C-alpha cells in the first residue's frame, strides 16, 4: 500500500472511531439539560436522579471522546503536512478557536457539573449542565466550519507564496455549506443520544428493573428522537442534498449511482454500482423521483458522472454509493420507528407494547452506523479533492513520512483503540447494570471523573 492510501486509512479510522463518542456527547448533553429542566420545573426527584445516572455515562463517553480527539488535531501536521502548510491560514483558525473557546469551557464546567451538585443551587447546577451543552455544541460548530471549508471553500484568497488565506472571517464562519451541514450533523447527534436513552429505557421496562426510570428515559428519548429523526430528513437532509447537487454534482451523481445525465432521473433504492459497465447491477429504482427530490420537478435534468472527467470521480465510488444508501435507509427506518413510538406514547400505550420496545432496545447501534455512513458520504464524496476544486488529496500528504511509518502508527492506533473499546463497554455496562438508584449525589467515593 502506498503512503497516500495508508494516510487516508489512518485518518479515516481515527476520525470514525473518534466520532462514535462526540455524537453521543453532543446528543446526550442536550437530553441531560432536558432532564434537568423538567426536574427544575416539576421538582420531580426522579428526573434529577435520571440526570445523575446519565451524567455518569456521559463522563465515561466524554473521556473517550476527548482522548481520541487529541490525535485528530495533530494528524493534519503529521500525516497531511503539505495540506496543513497550504491551508493552515484558513482552517487552523477554527481549529485553534475550538481550543480557545470550547475546550476550556468544557473542562471548567464539566467538573462543576459532575462534582459540584451539593455545593451549587439547583439553578446553578442546571446552568453548569447547560454550559457543558454549549461547550460541546460550539466545539462541533468549529469542526464543521473546518470541514465545510474543505467541502466548499469560501472567503479565501491565494497569497503570492501559494498559500491560502481567509479574506472574511464571518464569511468563513457563515459558509452556507457549513450551516446546513451543522444542522444535519447536530440533529444526527441528537438521534444517537435519543436512541441510546430509549434503549436503556426499554431495557429497564422490558426487564422489569428500575421500570420507573425506564419510563422517564423513554418519554424524553422518544420525544427527542421523533423531533430529531424528522429534522434529519426534512429540512436538514433535504437541504443538504439540494445544496450538494448544485455545488458537488459529481458527488451527488456517485452517491445516487447516476452514470448518465438524465431528465426525469430515477432514484435507485438498492443496487450495486458496476464501474466497468457504468450501470447499476440488480437495481430497484423508482422513476423520476431523483429529479423531483433535487429540483422539485419530475422532468428536471440531473447531472450524471458522464459529465465529470474520469479523474474527478469520487474514489472509491461503490463505497460512497453504499455509505449514502445505508445512511438514507437507516434514517427512514428511524423516522418510522420513532413515529410509531411517539404515537403510542401519546396514546399512553408505549410502555406495554413489546412490538415497539424491543426494536427500540435493539436499534441503538444503528444511529452510530448512520452517522458514520453520513460522514463517509461527505468525505468520500469530496474526493479526489482535499479542498474541493483546489487541493487534490494526492497533493496533501506528508512526503517524508514513509508508508512503513504510517502503517506502524495505524496498527498502534488500532491496538490502542481496541483497548479503549473494551474499557468503555465494561464501564458503561457496569453503570447500566447497577441502575439509576445506585448513584449517590457527589459522594466522596465517587470517581474523579473530570475528563
Amino acid at each position, binding site marked *: 500500500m502506498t503512503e497516500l492510501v495508508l494516510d487516508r486509512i489512518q485518518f479515516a479510522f481515527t476520525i470514525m472511531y473518534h466520532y462514535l463518542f462526540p455524537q453521543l456527547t453532543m446528543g446526550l448533553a442536550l437530553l441531560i439539560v432536558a432532564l434537568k429542566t423538567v426536574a427544575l420545573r416539576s421538582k420531580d426527584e426522579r428526573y434529577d436522579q435520571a440526570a445523575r445516572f446519565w451524567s455518569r455515562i456521559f463522563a465515561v463517553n466524554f473521556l473517550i471522546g476527548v482522548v481520541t480527539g487529541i490525535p485528530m488535531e495533530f494528524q493534519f501536521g503529521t500525516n497531511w503536512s503539505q495540506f496543513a502548510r497550504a491551508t493552515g491560514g484558513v482552517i487552523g483558525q477554527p481549529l485553534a478557536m475550538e481550543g*480557545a473557546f470550547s475546550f476550556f469551557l468544557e473542562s471548567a464546567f464539566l467538573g462543576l457539573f459532575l462534582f459540584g451538585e451539593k455545593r451549587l443551587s439547583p439553578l446553578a447546577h442546571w446552568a453548569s449542565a447547560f454550559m457543558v451543552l454549549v461547550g460541546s455544541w460550539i466545539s462541533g460548530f468549529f469542526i464543521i466550519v473546518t470541514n465545510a471549508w474543505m467541502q466548499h471553500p469560501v472567503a479565501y484568497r491565494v497569497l503570492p507564496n501559494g498559500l491560502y488565506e481567509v479574506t472574511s472571517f464571518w464569511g468563513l464562519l457563515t459558509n452556507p455549506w457549513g450551516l446546513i451541514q451543522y444542522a444535519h450533523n447536530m440533529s444526527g447527534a441528537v438521534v444517537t443520544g435519543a436512541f441510546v436513552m430509549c434503549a436503556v429505557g426499554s431495557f429497564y421496562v422490558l426487564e422489569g428493573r428500575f421500570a420507573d426510570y425506564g419510563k422517564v428515559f423513554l418519554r424524553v428519548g422518544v420525544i427527542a428522537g421523533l423531533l430529531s429523526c424528522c429534522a434529519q430528513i426534512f429540512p436538514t437532509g433535504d437541504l443538504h442534498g439540494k445544496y450538494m447537487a448544485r455545488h458537488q454534482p459529481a458527488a451527488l451523481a456517485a452517491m445516487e449511482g447516476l452514470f448518465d445525465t438524465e431528465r426525469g432521473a430515477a432514484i435507485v433504492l438498492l443496487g450495486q454500482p458496476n464501474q466497468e459497465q457504468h450501470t447499476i447491477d440488480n437495481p430497484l429504482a423508482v422513476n423520476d423521483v431523483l429529479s423531483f427530490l433535487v429540483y422539485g420537478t419530475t422532468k428536471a435534468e440531473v447531472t450524471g458522472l458522464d459529465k465529470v472527467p474520469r479523474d474527478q470521480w469520487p474514489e472509491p465510488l461503490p463505497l460512497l454509493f453504499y455509505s449514502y444508501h445505508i445512511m438514507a435507509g437507516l434514517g427512514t427506518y428511524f423516522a418510522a420507528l420513532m413515529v410509531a413510538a411517539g404515537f403510542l406514547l401519546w396514546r399512553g400505550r408505549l410502555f406495554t407494547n413489546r412490538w415497539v420496545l424491543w426494536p427500540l432496545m435493539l436499534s441503538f447501534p444503528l444511529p452510530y452506523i448512520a452517522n458514520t455512513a453520513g460522514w463517509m458520504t461527505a468525505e468520500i464524496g469530496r474526493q479526489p479533492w482535499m479542498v474541493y476544486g483546489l487541493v487534490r488529496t494526492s497533493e496533501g500528504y506528508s512526503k517524508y513520512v514513509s508508508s512503513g511509518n504510517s502503517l506502524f502508527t495505524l496498527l498502534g492506533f488500532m491496538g490502542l483503540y481496541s483497548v479503549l473499546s473494551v474499557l468503555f463497554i465494561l464501564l458503561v455496562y457496569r453503570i447500566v447494570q447497577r441502575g439509576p438508584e445506585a448513584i449517590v449525589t457527589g459522594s466522596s467515593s465517587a470517581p*474523579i471523573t473530570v475528563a
Partner: protein
Amino acid sequence: MGFIWFWLVAIMIVAYVVLDGFDLGVGILQPLLAQTELDRQVMLRSIGPVWDGNEVWLIAGGGTLYFAFPLLYASAFSGFYLALMIVLWLLILRALAIELRMQVELNVWRTFFDGLFFLSSLLLAVFFGAALANVIRGVPLGEDGYFFLPLWTDWRTGSHPGILDWYTLIGSLLAMAALSLHGALYLAVKTEGTLQQQSRAAVRRLWMAVLLLTFAGVPATIMARHDTLANYYSSPVLFAIPVAVLLTLAGIIHYWRQQDDHKSFACSCMYLGLMLIGAAVALYPRLLPSSEDSALDITISKALSGPYTLRVGLVWWAFGMCLAVIYFVVVYRMFRGKITATRGEYGD
C-alpha cells in the same frame, strides 16, 4: 505581527509547562511518595479537577501554532512523526489512568492504572524535554522546509542528528527533574501530614538535580549550537534572564527552608517560565533552526500566515484567552485549600 505571534505562542507553551508540569510531576512522584492507598487517592485528587484544563493549553497552543505558523506546524509535526505519535498515545493512556483508576474497586485494577499513570507521566516529561532540546539544537531541514528525524541515533549531535542524542538526553533529564520538583512543591502546597512531609523531603534532592542539570545545560547547549548566545551578546540586557533563573532557583530552596510552600512553588513556576523564555530569546527570530545551514532555518517571516488571518486571530485570541483566564481563576478558587482524606474536590 510575527513578533507578537511568536511571543503569544511562547506564552501558551509557558502556561502549558507551568500548569500541566505540576500534574506530570505528581505522576512521576506517585510511586516514590505514596505509601498507602489513601496517599495515592489524595495525590490523584490534588490534580483531579484541574489536570485536564491544564492540558487544554497544549491543544490550544497546537491550534494557535497551526494557524499562525503553518509551515512550522507542518514541518515539525511530520518531521518528528514517530515521537509525536508516541506522545499522543501517552496522552491518551495518561488520561485513562487518571480518570478510570477509581471506577472499579479492585486492587489489581488500581495498581495497573497507578503504574500507567507513573510511566506515561515520566515518558511525557522525557519526550517534552527532548522536543525542546531538538528545537534548540536544530534539525536537518531540506530546501522545501521539511525534514524527517529518526527516533534513535548514535547519540552524537552534528548535521544529521536523531531525536535522542546526548544533548537532547540532558534536556529530557532536566525536564524530568524540574517537573518532579514542580510536582513535589505542588503536593507540599495541596496536602498535609505525612504526604506533605514526604514531598518536602523530596524537594531537597530534586532541587540538587535541577541545579546540576541547569548548570550542565548551558555549556552543553553552547557545544551543541555554537551561536546559541548570539542574541544575548547583541543585547546584553537579556543576560538578566539567566540571572533571574538563578534567583528563582535560590528562591525555591530559600522558601523551602522557611517551609513557605506557596512561595517556593511560585519560584518554581517562575523558574520554568524563565527557562523557556530564555530558550525562546535565544531562538528568536528562528522557529526551527537548521542543523546544517542557517539559510534553511524556518524563521518567523518564512512561516508566518497571511496578514488578515493574523489580525482577525488577534481579536478572537485575546477574547478567548480572557475567558480561559476567568475559567481558571474560578476553578482554582473553588478548588483552593488542602486535600484531605475526607474532603471532596469542591470542598464538600
